[in-house]
C-alpha cells in the first residue's frame, strides 16, 4: 500500500471508529463484503482477478436533512489496497425542492448499459465494463438542486471540478493503447507521450453544468436535458516529426498529447408501456467532438498516412429499446446508433456505428436461482461481449454468483475494436457476496 493510501486508510478507519461510537440516533449501516475470483480461459489459465471488497453505506436522516457516506476498499492478491469514497453528501429537503451537496453519483437517461444522456457520472473502466454498475459509475463533487412541480421537475447539477473517465492502466489486461502501423515495411513510429495538457485545472471557467426537465405520467416518462461539459474521454493530439535516416527512409516520431475538450449537448429520453411492452428511447446531439482522422505526410516523393489528425464534428447518438416478458422470462433488447454529421472520409470512425444489446433473465425456485444472459453486439464491427451468469441465494443476504465473460472477435480486432480487442480475455469467475 502506498503512503497516500496508508494515510487515506488510517483516516477512513478513524472515521469508522468515530461513526461506530456515535450514539445510534437513527444512524444506519448497510453494505456488502465480497470475494471475487476470475480465471482467464487462455492456455496459462492465469487469474484475471483475485479481489476482496468491502463496501459500507453510512446514512442518517433527521427531519429535513440527511447524509450518506459510502467508503469502499478493494484488496488484491498482491496486497494492493484501493480505498476511496464513492459518495459523501448532505441532503436538504424543502417542500418542493431538494438540495444535495458533495460527492455523488448522478445517473440520467433510460438506456441500460449504454451512455447517451447519462454523462454526468464518469466511468471507471479499470476492469472495462465488467464491474457492477454502481462500481463503474464514479461519484463527482457537485451541487444538485431539484425543483418539483407535481410529477415533473427540474434538476440542475453544477460540478466545479471536472472528473475524467478512469481508464485501465496500460499494464492491465484491460489496458488499451493506440497502435500506429507504418506503411513502410520495417519502420515503426516512435511514440512519446506528453501528459502536460491532460488535467483540466479546477476553476469556475472549467466547471460543468447540466440541466434536466423530467416527469412521469401514466402515458409516458420523459427527460429533456442539456449540458456544457468536458469530454470524459481525452482526444489524442499527435505531432508528427518526419525525419529521414541516412538511407533516406522516413523515421516518424509521434508525440501524443491527450487533452480533454469542451462539448455541449442536448438530448432526452422516453419510456412508455404499450400493451405490456415497455418501449424506451434516448437521443443526444453532441456538438464539438474531436474525432481521430488520417493525415498524409510527404517525405520527398514518398507519401505516408498516419491517424494523427483531429476533426471537430457534431454527432448524434440515439437508442430504441424494448422490454417484455415471455411467461416468467424477462427479455430486453436495445438498438443504438451513432451518426457523425458532415462526415469527412479522413475520420477513422465509421460515419454510422451500430450496436445492439440483449438481456434474458429468469428466476427459479422461489427466486433462489437466477439465470441471466447479457450481450453487447457491435453490428458495425461484428464483435461482441457475452455475459452469462447464474446466481444462487444461499440465505438472506448471502449470494453466490458464477459467470463468464466471452469476447467475440469481429472484422477488426485492433485497438479500435471495442470488444474484439479483448479476445484473449475470455474468463470464468465466481463471486461470493454477503450483504448487511
Amino acid at each position, binding site marked *: 500500500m502506498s503512503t497516500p493510501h496508508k494515510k487515506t486508510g488510517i483516516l477512513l478507519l478513524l472515521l469508522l471508529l468515530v461513526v461506530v461510537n456515535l450514539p445510534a440516533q437513527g444512524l444506519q449501516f*448497510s453494505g*456488502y463484503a465480497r470475494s471475487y475470483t476470475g480465471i482467464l480461459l487462455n492456455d496459462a489459465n492465469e487469474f484475471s482477478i483475485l479481489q476482496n471488497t468491502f463496501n459500507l453505506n453510512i446514512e442518517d436522516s433527521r427531519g429535513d436533512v440527511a447524509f450518506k457516506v459510502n467508503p469502499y476498499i478493494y484488496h488484491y492478491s498482491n496486497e494492493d489496497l484501493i480505498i476511496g469514497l464513492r459518495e459523501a453528501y448532505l441532503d436538504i*429537503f424543502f417542500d418542493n425542492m*431538494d438540495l444535495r451537496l458533495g460527492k455523488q*453519483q*448522478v*445517473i*440520467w*437517461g*433510460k438506456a441500460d448499459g449504454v451512455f447517451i444522456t447519462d454523462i454526468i457520472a464518469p466511468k471507471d473502466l479499470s476492469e472495462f465494463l465488467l464491474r*457492477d*454498475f*454502481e462500481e463503474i*459509475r464514479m461519484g463527482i463533487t457537485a451541487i444538485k438542486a*431539484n425543483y*418539483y412541480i407535481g*410529477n415533473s*421537475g427540474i434538476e440542475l447539477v453544477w460540478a466545479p471540478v471536472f472528473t475524467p473517465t478512469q481508464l485501465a492502466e496500460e499494464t492491465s489486461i484491460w489496458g488499451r493503447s493506440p497502435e500506429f502501423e507504418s506503411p513502410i515495411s520495417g519502420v515503426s513510429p516512435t511514440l512519446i507521450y506528453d501528459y502536460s495538457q491532460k488535467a483540466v485545472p479546477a476553476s469556475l471557467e472549467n466547471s460543468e453544468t447540466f440541466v434536466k426537465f423530467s416527469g*412521469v405520467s*401514466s402515458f409516458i*416518462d420523459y427527460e429533456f436535458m442539456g449540458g456544457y461539459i468536458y469530454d470524459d474521454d481525452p482526444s489524442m493530439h499527435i505531432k508528427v516529426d518526419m525525419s529521414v535516416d541516412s538511407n533516406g527512409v522516413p523515421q516518424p516520431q509521434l508525440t501524443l498529447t491527450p487533452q480533454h475538450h469542451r462539448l455541449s449537448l442536448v438530448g432526452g429520453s422516453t*419510456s*412508455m*408501456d404499450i*400493451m*405490456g*411492452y*415497455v418501449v424506451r428511447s434516448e437521443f443526444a446531439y453532441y456538438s464539438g467532438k474531436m474525432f481521430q482522422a488520417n493525415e498524409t505526410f510527404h517525405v520527398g516523393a514518398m507519401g505516408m498516412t498516419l491517424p494523427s489528425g483531429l476533426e471537430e464534428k457534431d454527432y448524434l447518438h440515439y437508442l430504441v429499446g424494448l*422490454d*417484455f*416478458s415471455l*411467461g*416468467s422470462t424477462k427479455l430486453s433488447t436495445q438498438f443504438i446508433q451513432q451518426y457523425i454529421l458532415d462526415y469527412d472520409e479522413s475520420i477513422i470512425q465509421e460515419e454510422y456505428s451500430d450496436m445492439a444489446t440483449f438481456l434474458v433473465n429468469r*428466476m427459479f425456485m*422461489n*427466486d*433462489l436461482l437466477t439465470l441471466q444472459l447479457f450481450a453487447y453486439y457491435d453490428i458495425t464491427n461484428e464483435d461482441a461481449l457475452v455475459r452469462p451468469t447464474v446466481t444462487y*441465494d444461499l*440465505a*438472506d*443476504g448471502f*449470494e453466490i454468483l458464477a459467470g463468464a465473460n466471452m469476447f467475440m472477435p469481429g472484422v477488426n480486432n485492433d485497438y479500435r475494436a471495442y470488444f474484439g480487442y479483448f479476445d484473449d480475455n475470455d474468463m470464468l469467475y465466481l463471486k461470493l*457476496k454477503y*450483504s*448487511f
Partner: protein
Amino acid sequence: MKTKTSLMIIIGIFLIGSMSLTAQTEISATEIMQKVSDRPDGDEMEGTLTMTLINSRGGERVREIRQYIKDFGTVEKKIMFFLKPADIKNTSFMNWSYDDANKNDDQWIYLPALKKVKRISSDSSGDYFMGSDFTYDDLGDRKVGDDTHTLLRTETIEGLECYVVESVTKDEDYMYSKTITWVVKDRWYGLKKEFYDEDEDFLKSLTLLNVEQINGFWIITGTEMKNEQKDHMTRMEFNGVKVDAGISDSKFSERMMKRGL
C-alpha cells in the same frame, strides 16, 4: 378505497366472481363477490408487511416492506419501500391502478444500484412476488366480471357462517382454472381460498390468520399461502396498520421512490 389492490388487504385474493342464484339463497354468487370487492376499507392505508417464506425443510427467508396506499378517485396509488433482506434494501416500487378495466396498471421500480427509476411492464401478473407463493395477481385487483361464479353451498367455520363460491375464469390463458372462496357472511371478507392450476389440479390454499377492526374497517392483517405442489409456504403479516391517518399526495412520486423512507 374503491379497489382493494394491496398486499395488506388481501381481500383481492379472496374474491372474484359472478354467477346465478340458487333456489335456496337470497343472494347470488356474483353479488357475494361484488360485496367483497366493494367492502369499505378506507381511502388511505399504511403499514409494514412481513413475508416469511418457508421451504419444505422448514428453512425460512424473510422479506419486509413498508407500504402506503391511497385512493385518488379513478386511480389507486401504492408505493412500497423494501426493508429486508439487505441486498434489496432501499429498492422501491410504485403502482398506479385504474378503475378503467381497459387500462393496464403503471409500474415503476427504483433500484439503488442503478440509481434510477425504471418503468416496468405491468404484464407480469402471473409472476411470483419476491419469491413468495403469492403472484402479483393474487395481491391485486381481479375484476368480478373476469370469472363466472357459482354458489356451491354454505358452511360454518369456526363459528362463522360462510358462502362457498366457485369462480371459473373466462380467460383460457389465465394461470388458475378455478378458485373456491369461503366468504364470511355479512362481513364480506374471505376466510379461505383454494386455487386450481390450468390442468384443474389443486395448486395452493390461502388461509386467513388474523383480521382486525381498525378505524371501523375490517382489515386482514395475517394470511398464509401454501403451495401444495411445491411444498412451499408464505406467511404474510401486516403490522402497524393505519387507516385514513393522512398520507400526502406527494408520497406517490418518483421523488419519494429515490428518497426512500
